[in-house]
């Protein structure tokens, strides 16, 4: 996925400052119960497929678009596994740009196409059995994947804050 145009424009004004962006991540399970992972070219970690929303886009549509762009597969997102921020996950890119993400994790089923490397963001892509996940896996994505395997009837979230936490 190239850098979306509107992010490029904002970066011209804010430089490397922190941007907090809405993102989507796909837990794509095939009929054999395996989950699709791609090996990212930038950090070498196995990761779920995902990306950033465009202005005006529904999150589920953004997800299907990202999966299409990165793997040439069409998927049907059928449930939101969870909604998470990542307080410990400030991403600092090699060029110095800082980002944090609000992540909506979707369970998806593949409906057409076989996974292939469709852009330069990944160097490998394949399905893994849950009991044989690769070692070099993004730890947050591993949590999302395992949460997806539980696939509770409700959407997962995390909360700790009470008014007493306020200073």
């Amino acid at each position: 996925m190239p850098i979306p145009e509107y992010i490029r424009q904002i970066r011209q004004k804010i430089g490397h400052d922190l941007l907090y962006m809405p993102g989507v991540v796909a837990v794509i399970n095939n009929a054999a119960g395996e989950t699709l992972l791609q090996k990212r070219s930038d950090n070498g970690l196995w990761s779920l497929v995902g990306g950033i929303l465009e202005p005006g886009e529904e999150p589920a549509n953004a997800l299907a678009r990202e999966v299409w762009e990165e793997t040439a597969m069409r998927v049907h997102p059928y449930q939101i596994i969870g909604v998470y921020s990542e307080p410990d996950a400030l991403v600092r890119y090699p060029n110095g740009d800082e980002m944090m993400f609000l992540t909506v994790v979707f369970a998806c089923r593949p409906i057409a196409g076989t996974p292939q490397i469709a852009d330069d963001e990944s160097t490998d892509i394949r399905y893994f059995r849950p009991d044989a996940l690769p070692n070099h896996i993004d730890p947050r994505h591993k949590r999302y994947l395992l949460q997806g395997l539980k696939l509770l009837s409700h959407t997962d979230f995390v909360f700790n804050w009470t008014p007493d936490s306020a200073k």
Partner: protein
Amino acid sequence: MAISEYVRRLREKVGTDLLMMPAVGGIVINAAGEILLQRRSDNGLWGIPGGAIDPGEEPADAIVREVWEETGVRVIPERVVGVYGGPELLVRYPNGDEAMVISMTFLCRPVSGEPHPHDDESLEVRYFSANALPETLIARHRRRIEDALRATPAALFTFTLTPDKEITK
């Protein structure tokens, strides 16, 4: 909700340009089945409490904080009603600021606190019976309340890309 330090600093640099804004809304329903609404000071309309998520803040934490800040009510988030985006949430505020809001709406249960305007964002705060919601309730918020009352366990969302439609960048 006061504007966060993060948004204030970004706005100093980008002016009114479009910003992506992860946000939360809360459908707070008490034991009598009534729904907590606030009349907003910016447009005089009734709406559900909510606001922008601070970077790195868990969405469920953000709704507990926002409801507390705006209404003085402490809540526990019980489930995610829906995750909303799309063109309807591409908004321009009265001051010209443009934002693309992505809203996570939570169903919440109040645990303590008497509802009252708790900051300068609301003029009135009170519970309404679900069948007697105010006329001047923001239409989008009325639909989210309907979504919350439908009681589907998993979050609602909109998906309109199908294999028949070309996916374009």
